[in-house]
C-alpha cells in the first residue's frame, strides 16, 4: 500500500482508473454486439472480451493499492472501487455468455456494460 501525495493525485488516479474501465467495458460491449449481429466470428469476439477482462484486473489492483489521503477520498475510493469491481464482474459474465453462446445473456451483458460505462464516464467527468 502506498499513500497518494494529496487529494488531487488521488483523484487523478481515480479518473485514470475509471477511463481505462470505460474503455474496456465499451470494447467488450462492441465485440458482443458485433458477434450478435454475425459481423465478427466467435474466436475474434472471445479474444477481445477476454483481453478486456484481463486488462481491468490490473486497473482495479493498482487503484486499490493507493491509500486515500483524506476521509472524503476514502468515500471516493469505495465508490470507484465498487464501480471497477462491477465492471470486472460484468466482463467475466460477458465472457461466460459468449463462450456458452447464449444470445439472451450476451444481450443482457451488452446492456449492463453500456450502462456501467455511462456511469463510470459520468463519475470521471465529475472528477475532472
Amino acid at each position, binding site marked *: 500500500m502506498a499513500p497518494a501525495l494529496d487529494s488531487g493525485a488521488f483523484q487523478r488516479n481515480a479518473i*485514470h482508473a475509471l477511463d481505462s474501465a470505460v*474503455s474496456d467495458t*465499451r470494447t467488450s460491449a462492441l465485440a458482443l454486439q*458485433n458477434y450478435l449481429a454475425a459481423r*465478427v*466470428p466467435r474466436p*475474434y469476439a*472471445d*479474444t*477481445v472480451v477476454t483481453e478486456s477482462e484481463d486488462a481491468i484486473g490490473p486497473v482495479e489492483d493498482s487503484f486499490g493499492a493507493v491509500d486515500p489521503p483524506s476521509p472524503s477520498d476514502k468515500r471516493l475510493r469505495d465508490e470507484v472501487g465498487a464501480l471497477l469491481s462491477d465492471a470486472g464482474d460484468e466482463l467475466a459474465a460477458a465472457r461466460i455468455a459468449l463462450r456458452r453462446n447464449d444470445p439472451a445473456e450476451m444481450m443482457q451483458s451488452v446492456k449492463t456494460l453500456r450502462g456501467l460505462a455511462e456511469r463510470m464516464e459520468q463519475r470521471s467527468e465529475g472528477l475532472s
Partner: protein
Amino acid sequence: MKKLFAIALGILTAIGGFVDIGDLVTNGLVGARFGLSLVWVVLLGIIGICVFAEMSGRVAAVSGRATFDLVRERLGPRVGLLNLFASMAVTLLTFIAEIGGVALALQLATRVNPYLWIPVVGAAVWIVLWRVKFAVLENAFGLAGLALVVFAVTLWKLDPDWADLWRQASRPFVPHDESHTTYFYYAVALFGAAMTPYEVFFFSSGGVEEGWTSDDLGTMRANVFIGFPLGGLLSVAIAAVAAVVYLPQGVEVDTLGQIGMPVGQALGVLGIALVLLGFFAATFGAACETGLSVGYSIAQYLGWQWGKFVAPLKAARFHSVVLLSAVVAVGVLLTTIDPIMLTEYSVVFSAVALPLTYFPILVVANDRTYMGRDVNGRLANTLGTVYLVVVLVAAVAAIPLMIVTKAGQ
C-alpha cells in the same frame, strides 16, 4: 511488357509490405486518442522514408553493394560499429515485436493463447528465411498485405463526417484532455514507426539480392515514390477508422483485436477474414524482413558472405545469425512480455536510432567513388539534410518524452 509487370508488382508489394506491427499499433492507438491531428507526422515520416530508401536503393543499384558493407568501408569500423549496434538493436526489438504480432493475429483467428503460437511462429519464420526464395517471400507477403486495403474500404463504409476528418488532419491540435508532452511523445512514436531503420537496410540489401543495376533505378524509384506513399495511406486509413469508431466513445486502443474490430462492424465476417489475412501477412512479412535485416547488418559489417542469393551452406554464418535471432525472439516473448507494449517501445527506440542509421547513408550516397554520376543531387541532399535535423530532434526528444509522459499515459 515484362518491365511494366515488374514495376506494377514492385509497387503493389511496396504498398502491401509497408505496414508492420509498429504502424498497426501506433496508428490505431493514436487515431483513437488524437483523431487525425497527428496525420502530419505520418506524412512527414513517409516523405523521409522515401528520401532515404531511394538513396539506399540507388547505392545498392549503382555500387552492387549494400549499405552496411559501404558504411564500414567509408566511415571506418568504429562509426560502422556504432551504426551497427544502434540499428541492429532496434531491428532485433522490432523482429521480436513482429513475431509477437503474428501470434496475436493467429490468436484472433483461433482463440489459441498467443504464447502457444510464439514457438510455432518463430520456427515458421526461420524455415521460411532458410528455404523460401527471396523473390517469393517478398512478393507473397507484400501482395497478401494488400488485404489491409480493407481499412480504406471500412472508412468509406462507415460514412464518417469527411469535413470533420479533414479539419482534424489539416489543422493539428492537442485534444483538451491530452497534454502537449503526450501529443509529442506519440508524434515521435509515429515518426519512428514510419521511418523504422530496418526498412532501408532491407530495401538496399534486397536490391543486391535481386541483382539490381543502374538499369533498375527507374523501377526502384517507382516502388519508392508510388508504393511507399500508397502504403502510408493505409496507415492513415487505420488511424482514421480508429478515430471514427473509438474516439467518440473514449475507448483506448491497445490490442490488435480492437484495431480490426471496426472492419467487422462495417464489412462483416468477410472483412474480418481479410483483416486477419492482412494482419498475418503484414506481421509475418515484416518478421521475415527484420529477421533478414539482423543477419544482413551483422554479416555485412563483419564481411561475411550473406544473402539468399547464395546457397545457405555458402552463407552459413549469416543463416546462423538469423537462426539465433529467431531463438532469442522466441525466448524473449516467452517471458510473457506483452508484444503490443514491446511494439510501443520499439517504435520510440527506433526514433532514437534514426540519426545513426540515416547519417551514414547520406554520406555514402554523396561519395563519387561508389556512386559515380549517380551521386546525390541537390534535391536529395537538401531533403536528406533537412531530415537529418528532424530525426536528430526526434532522437533527442524521444527518451525525455517517454520519461515525462510515463510512456504516453
